[in-house]
């Protein structure tokens, strides 16, 4: 009895210490970004550093929002992420429907290509895609960046939606077919309503992935009117001088939309992420 209680206590202490270490490790960088963004210029560079802002201020945000091109970057990121999401979700839904519900020549090959394209990392494609966009005169434009983002978000959303649509019993659309519905009607009236939860998760993923992307943005958009948040953040560091207060305030602005999505939809996002490769 006594040893049992003692070993349980030891176990609890062990868990508490491990959890504390894990939380410190996970949260310190994020905490430091937030804290820095609310400090005055002198306090940011003070030694010893303050672990909580002594005189919290919004100066850094004012500077970023009113004295840099950042508002335009934010708007561009929204346009690009929303455009990418819309096209990828619509195209993905149509494609996933065909893959899951129709027997046709080349089905296995297309399915295979979708997975391969989803797994291709941007660094393999950024040089030849640059040439493609140049040829289409889409370089340094928001539509061009959307086209580039479709390389990963279209296969990704198709792949995720294949998983969702597969779980809908096909008796439902067979019944609708017998009643004379066309395939497109089946998709819009039967499948779409049932796959809406899955589709919204796919949209959240597509949006955050486009919002977070950096390499394509760095290479394909390079003027103050076309840069997105990530490319804009990098442009604020031009040269070797880092204006940390403004950079951290800008970082917080870049994190917030993603963080909101994550906090609201965490459960579904995690289920979606793991289902792609476990179930």
């Amino acid at each position, binding site marked *: 009895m006594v040893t049992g209680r003692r070993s349980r206590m030891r176990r609890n202490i062990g*868990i*508490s210490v491990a*959890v504390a270490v*894990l939380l410190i*490790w*996970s*949260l310190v960088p994020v905490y430091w*970004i937030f804290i*820095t963004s609310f400090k005055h210029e002198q306090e940011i*560079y003070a030694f010893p550093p303050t672990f909580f802002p002594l005189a919290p201020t919004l100066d850094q945000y004012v500077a970023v929002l009113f004295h840099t091109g950042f508002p335009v970057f934010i708007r561009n990121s929204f346009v690009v992420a929303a455009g990418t999401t819309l096209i990828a979700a*619509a*195209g993905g839904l*149509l*494609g996933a*429907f*065909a893959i*899951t519900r*129709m*027997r*046709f*020549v080349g089905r296995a090959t*297309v*399915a295979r*290509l979708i997975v*391969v*394209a989803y*797994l*291709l*990392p941007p*660094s*393999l494609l*950024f*040089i*030849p*895609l640059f*040439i493609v966009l140049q040829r289409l005169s889409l370089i340094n434009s928001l539509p061009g960046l959307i086209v580039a983002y*479709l*390389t990963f978000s279209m*296969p990704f959303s*198709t792949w995720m939606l294949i998983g969702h649509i*597969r779980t809908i019993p096909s008796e439902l659309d067979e019944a609708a077919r017998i009643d004379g519905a066309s395939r497109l009607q089946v998709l819009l009236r039967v499948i779409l309503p049932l796959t809406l939860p899955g589709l919204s998760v796919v949209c959240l993923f597509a949006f*955050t992935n486009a*919002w*977070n992307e*950096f390499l394509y943005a760095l290479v394909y958009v390079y003027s103050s009117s076309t840069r997105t948040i990530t490319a804009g*953040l*990098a442009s604020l560091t031009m040269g070797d001088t*880092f204006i*940390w207060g403004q950079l*951290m305030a800008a*970082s917080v602005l870049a*994190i917030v939309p993603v963080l909101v*999505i*994550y*906090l609201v939809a*965490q459960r579904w996002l*995690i289920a979606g992420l*793991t289902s792609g*490769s*476990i179930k």
Partner: protein
Amino acid sequence: MASQALRVGAGAISRGQVRGGANRERLRTTLEAYVFLLPVVIVLLGLAAYPLADGIWESFTNRQVAQAGHFVGFANFTMLFHTAAYRGAVVNSVLLTVGAVATKTVLGLGCAVLLTQDFPLRGLVRALAFLPWAVPGLVAALGWRWLFDEQAGVFNAVIMMLGGQPVSWLSDSSIAMVSIGIATVWQGLPFYMLMFIAALTTVPAEIYEAAAIDGASAWERFRHITLPSIADVIGVTVMLSSIWTFNNFNMVYMLTGGGPDDRTQILPTLAYEYAMQRNLLGMGAAVITSALPIFLGIIFLLTRRMLREKGVR
């Protein structure tokens, strides 16, 4: 035997009549399917397959940003193999990928086991531990650069407060690769935790109880029950993460920019340097193409597995 022969015979009779109709039906379905698949196929062929092939082609040319190139054979590759920056980038890429993936696997397993124990506020702790996953990669890189900052960064400040000497986190090339590795692990660990936790929860609790009654120690249970039952998931996670870690352009670009003296370049940042800073698209493409076989190998293995799981073959 007789009935089988009969069936074959009946098939032979009806086949001629049915075939025409069935084929026409199949053709119709195929055409209709590709109408549905049109956006996906355009992306697959125009924005993935074609650029991939074109990238390989460009690596055999001396193409520049504003200038069409012509075929130069293996000249780009021979040039690269004789360049210290390229050889260094290969070594760095391999070390970073192997080191970070191994660390993430071990830590990920530990964290997953920890986060599947029963303790108060477990849901909240999980949500906070996954937080780095929700931070945009570039912002994570920028945040770490600020932590590592050698003049005003908090790491050196704390070290100095404790009476130590400031560390050259990013300007000393041997330390810089480790710093990049630390930040890479921070960013990637949540994915491992997610995957491993999801896998652990599928292992039936009765097996553990039975093993515990038989007197198996915690380590024995982990070694002989946990590891074998999630080995598959570990494999997939490691392969996916290897692709992403190898291509972690953001971290290196933002932390060191490949410097000092190209000593922390990895292949993607070196390709960017050639293609975009020096306008040598052909050379940049060659850097990427030289790593292509490994990727296509991993992607081939992953694709087979993922298709099997979804039952689309």
